[in-house]
């Protein structure tokens, strides 16, 4: 079968350092005897996502959701196992990451498009659609530092979707923006799905997961605890939280956003 994304026994461990940036002095002085510990971010994850599927990745903070998305997005290389992705990916950047405040919205569109591997001619044909969808026609030549969070969010989403990727990765960003625009985003995502594109998104919002994705993957401590129909998997996930809540005191995460 022809998959868009195929992870085979993927594990990812990280070196945990006492200080984030070691200095040359401490590197020279410290005798290397197992001082750095390794923490497992993903443990033996096998996952296949077909073309046209929309998959929500759910789980508690630190369960490995973002690590999984970064492995798929080729930001991290797996420690072991293999990753295959077929098609052009685009990542919806969290606010600010891909925008330079001093540059205009238009300049930032070209920069973001370039980051996704597009060329000048690809972008020239898409820029009007991007600006229209983001509803920023009047502000597109103003510096991005003058934009509100909502405007930035719209621009980011618009770039990610209107550049026509085969695979769209979204890391918990749909929570921002007004209700009306969110509605528009979900509409666009539906159209995207019907065009046979693949979406993987990380979310804490279980209602959003249920309304957008037919399949959910539940991660816990870097392992896949559940994978299947969104309604069933989110129910299992909620059950586990309540179960822990009874004897551990952990609270059920709010589904609002």
């Amino acid at each position, binding site marked *: 079968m022809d998959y868009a994304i195929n992870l085979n026994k993927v594990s990812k461990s990280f070196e945990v350092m006492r200080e984030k940036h070691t*200095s040359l002095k401490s590197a020279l002085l410290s005798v290397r005897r197992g001082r750095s510990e390794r923490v497992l971010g993903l443990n033996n994850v096998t996952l296949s996502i077909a073309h046209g599927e929309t998959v929500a990745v759910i789980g508690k903070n630190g369960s490995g959701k973002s690590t999984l998305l*970064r492995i798929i997005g080729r*930001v991290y*290389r797996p420690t072991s196992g293999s990753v295959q992705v077929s098609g052009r990916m685009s990542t919806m*950047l*969290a606010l600010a990451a*891909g925008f330079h405040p001093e540059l205009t919205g238009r300049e930032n569109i070209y920069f973001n498009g370039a980051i996704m591997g597009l060329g000048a001619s690809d972008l020239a044909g898409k820029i009007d659609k991007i600006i229209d969808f983001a509803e920023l026609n009047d502000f597109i030549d103003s510096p991005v530092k003058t934009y509100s969070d909502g405007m930035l969010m719209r621009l980011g989403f618009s770039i990610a979707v209107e550049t026509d990727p085969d695979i769209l990765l979204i*890391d918990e960003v749909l929570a921002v923006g007004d209700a009306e625009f969110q509605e528009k985003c979900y509409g666009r995502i539906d159209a995207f799905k019907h065009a046979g594109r693949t979406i993987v998104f990380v979310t804490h919002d279980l209602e959003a997961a249920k309304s957008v994705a037919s399949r959910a993957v539940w991660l816990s401590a870097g392992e896949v605890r559940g994978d299947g129909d969104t309604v069933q998997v989110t129910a299992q996930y909620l059950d586990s939280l309540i179960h822990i809540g009874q004897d551990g005191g952990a609270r059920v995460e709010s589904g609002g956003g």
Partner: protein
Amino acid sequence: MADELKELFRYRYLLLQLVVRDIKVRYKNSLLGFFWSLANPLLQVATITVVIKYVMRLEIPNYSAYLLVGYLPWMFFQMALLDSSQVVLAHRDLLRKVYFPREVLPLSVVMANLAHYVLAMVVFFAYLLFYRLFLHGAPIGVTALWLPVLMAIQTALVIGLAFFISCLNVFYEDVKYLLTVLLNVFFYLTPVMYPAELVYAKLAQLNSPMLYQLYLLVPMNALTNAYRKTLLPPFEGLTIKGTPIPSQPLDWGTVAAAGVICLSIAAAGYAFFNARKWVFAERV
């Protein structure tokens, strides 16, 4: 390495965007824009000229031209390397979110600084032409046609070193401090403020012409010497303590050696960077 280069080529538009962004952002809110990048070397050259000629009273005819022709390449070298030490950390948000060939980062700062250098050289030629036309300055020789070759060799050197520095600074932030110190020291060791012949004269006294050959194997020494010899006529009338110091013709062998060394540094730097670039996202 062929695959890496192919992927880099696929992302050439991103490299262009990074270079343009770097230049745009630098001068976004300044009126004089690019001229600020000229103000620094020109002021520095004027100051050194005044100190050498009028305070220390060394007799070096037309000194400021000989100084400038060494100082502008040095500025390119220094600014590009200092920028490269910061470039990966400056893009940490992007690195942690998106895939792209990481080498575009150091390459972009080298290219942006190269653009400044090229513009500075245009101004330098205008200055030579002005002197030639109105103040009986020396003609610009045909050897000036070698300039693009020298610039290409220097760019290879800067790219190679930028790969090492940008990568190492991710793991050890001391690198940028060490770099600042080393650049300061090497500014005086490189024949920027003085002709290489003075080093030759000193080493000849020590009776060790081998040392001078070694001195010219350091790429920036050979390059600075070559820039000066190809762009300006041989200096005349330089004496130190009554001993005349004759100008020597350019030894092209040293330029060729510098070329080979610089290309090797570029290749080694690229390999070093590539072996570590996918860990950046976990370390920044």
